[in-house]
């Protein structure tokens, strides 16, 4: 894909954000809590936003699909799993036994029209299918085909406000992942309900998971329950990355 020449507005915006490349950020930026490592995470995020355009992650041929391991939470109803949420596990179990007919995705926060979407609602919206590589922070990777609703499309349909800067994804386990608005509107960032041409299996996040192809695998949160658009970085505390010692930005 050829890169367009930077328009002047992007150049000026880039120069402006170059000023904040240092350790200080603007208010509403991801917190560092005085940690050098977290400052480094924000430096990498800023540099990526300054340098990178809207390039698409490589898409592969279906014949290149590989086997894939399922890690992290592989069943939100299993109380033995480390990220089990006692407040959500039973609800997930009931929804699964009902083939997710009663499942709804909540869209909330900085949107003009918050609401709830069933799987059928999402499947009525235009879908995108992509064969992409999942890159796990552990070091392995796998290629699979994903079909789902572009997150940007859903955010636009919900009347996302111009002040929106981050999106928090909430799951049926204890996990919450934050992505910035640039990744949220990336054309390959989708809410996937199908994998390799079939319904998403439970071990890979049924009924709906995020696919954020410009980020490491842990940003492609499984078992989605709720999406909250925010104007400033809302640290999800012990459910999020930072307070568990991980980088909130996972582009590298």
């Amino acid at each position, binding site marked *: 894909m050829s890169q367009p020449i930077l328009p002047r507005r992007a150049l000026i915006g880039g120069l402006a954000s170059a000023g904040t490349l240092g350790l200080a950020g603007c208010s509403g930026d991801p917190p560092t809590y005085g940690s050098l490592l977290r400052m480094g995470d924000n430096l990498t995020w800023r540099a990526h936003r300054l*340098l990178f355009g809207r390039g698409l992650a490589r898409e592969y041929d279906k014949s290149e699909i590989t086997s894939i391991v399922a890690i992290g939470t592989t069943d939100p109803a299993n109380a033995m799993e480390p990220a089990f949420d006692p407040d959500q596990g039973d609800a997930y179990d009931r929804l699964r036994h009902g083939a997710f007919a009663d499942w709804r995705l909540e869209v909330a926060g900085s949107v003009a029209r918050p609401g709830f979407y069933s799987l059928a609602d999402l499947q009525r919206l235009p879908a995108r299918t992509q064969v992409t590589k999942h890159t796990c922070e552990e070091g392995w*990777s796998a290629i699979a085909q994903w079909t789902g609703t572009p997150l940007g499309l859903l955010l636009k349909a919900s009347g996302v406000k111009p002040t929106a800067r981050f999106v928090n994804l909430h799951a049926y386990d204890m996990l919450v992942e934050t992505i910035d608005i640039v990744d949220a509107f990336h054309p390959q960032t989708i809410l996937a309900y199908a994998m390799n041409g079939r319904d998403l299996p439970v071990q890979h996040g049924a009924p709906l998971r995020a696919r954020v192809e410009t980020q490491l695998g842990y940003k492609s949160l499984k078992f989605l329950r709720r999406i909250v658009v925010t104007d400033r970085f809302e640290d999800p505390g012990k459910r999020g990355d930072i307070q568990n010692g991980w980088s909130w930005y996972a582009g590298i």
Partner: protein
Amino acid sequence: MTASLETAAPDAGHAAWVRLCHWLIAAAVLTLAYSGVVILMAHPRLYWGNAGNDLTRAWLELPLGRNYRHGGWAPPLAFGTGPAGPVSRVRTYDIFNQNGWARSLHFLVAWGLAAAVFAYLVVGAFTGHLRRALLPALADLSPPRLWADVRAHLAWPPPRAAGGPPYNLMQKLAYALVIFAALPLVILSGLAMSPAVGAAWPWIPAIFGGSQSARSVHFLLLCALALFLLVHLAMVALTGAWRQLRAMTFGGRR
């Protein structure tokens, strides 16, 4: 004009900017090697191509910690594409994973390494240091001269070396390979593993034939740099460790 930055007199030993870059790069490489091995321990398997995981073939499995050839896999789930088609398996094994701090430390220090290597190359190019001190003359690369230099290195006892250039042929080749090849390639192969870099600049992973190939190259370059470090430290020790350390830290020759 450029001579003011470079050591004006050939006897002055290491220039101040060389000493600064040397120790910055040394500290960065050691921290990156440490955090890099911790990262590798989370998944001590290496592959060629774009993708690889526990369910595909590795070209190297490293016995690093408890994740080496670990078991703990649920029965495979097929995707309905025939017996040879892709499968998925749930991992039930609790792996060693310290990547939270190790990755962030690795990338923080990688910024420092990139800055120090860049500064060294730019100042070195402008002062003529790279050409004068590091690049061997073409005529020196003839087999007789190379052989003569190898033989000189095998002489016992080893001669006491003065701190700083001029360097002999083997020194020039070793230092040039590190600064012109190994360090730039280790940064590039590191970038090639990043999903955001791969989307923005797909030519970077393409250079290595895919991001898993880049990960393998990244590891092989660590091995090459570790080998260089061992030989480097041995040569420093054999030719006057204390004097050489002082010359690389405070400058001067004595």
